[in-house]
């Protein structure tokens, strides 16, 4: 049976737990020699936003798997504290920060793309994104890029 040869991953969320899985899967695909593309849409654009991608936070409200009372999750500063905690755990097992990971994934030869509809909606431009982003593309362009491979939406 032939293995997977190409994968396109959509990152649509801007929280720490919304961004990392897609990055890990794209990086892991390249490590296996699989062609990979990342398409950032809606709040997922924060992952490639020059000024925002260093400040991605863990969502502490509406996440029952944190096993924390909802009212506590909404308390000022809790998201920062929890983010700091999980980031230090990640560093311990050698998972790079989001800015470093984005740079690394670009170096693996994966494609990084921003969604045009969202860029227009949020009033952004190419200058808002890190230099590794190859272009701002439409959904149609994305499907063309993804042709012949698998698509994962996160």
């Amino acid at each position, binding site marked *: 049976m032939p293995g997977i040869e190409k994968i396109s991953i959509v990152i649509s969320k801007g929280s720490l737990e919304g961004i990392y899985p897609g990055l890990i899967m794209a990086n*892991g695909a390249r*490590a*296996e*020699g699989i062609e990979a593309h990342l398409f950032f849409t809606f709040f997922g654009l924060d992952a490639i936003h020059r000024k925002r991608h260093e400040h991605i936070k863990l969502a502490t409200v509406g996440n029952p798997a944190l096993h924390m009372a909802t009212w506590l999750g909404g308390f000022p500063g809790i998201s920062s504290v929890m983010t700091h905690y999980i980031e230090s755990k990640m560093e311990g097992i*050698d998972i790079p920060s989001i800015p470093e990971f984005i740079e690394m994934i670009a170096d693996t030869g994966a494609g990084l793309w921003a969604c045009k509809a969202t860029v227009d909606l949020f009033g952004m431009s190419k200058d808002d994104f890190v230099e590794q982003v190859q272009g701002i593309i439409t959904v149609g362009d994305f499907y063309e890029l993804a042709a012949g491979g698998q698509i994962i939406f996160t």
Partner: protein
Amino acid sequence: MSTITLAGKDVARTDDGFFEDPSQWTEDMVPELAKAEGIEQLTDRHWVVIRFMRSEYLTKGTGPSVRALGKSSGVPIKELYELFPKGPAKQAAKIAGIPKPIGCI
């Protein structure tokens, strides 16, 4: 498991092509192993990575991931993928006769 002949020696490998016994590996097997990975022109830079994989495995018991390779081998990630397009850690491990490195990053 399958057996192939490399540099005149019978070598046992896993189904996905990694050495069952890394001690069976010798440097003269490298050109043939590289060729099987689609690498026709072995350069000094390939050798840097292959030797690094080998020494990491011998000291730590496991080969490095791509990120660790990029950080410590002296070959940056971009170049690693140019040298080993089908996955640097995986291909270099096969060529260096060591097990597949474990790790997600």
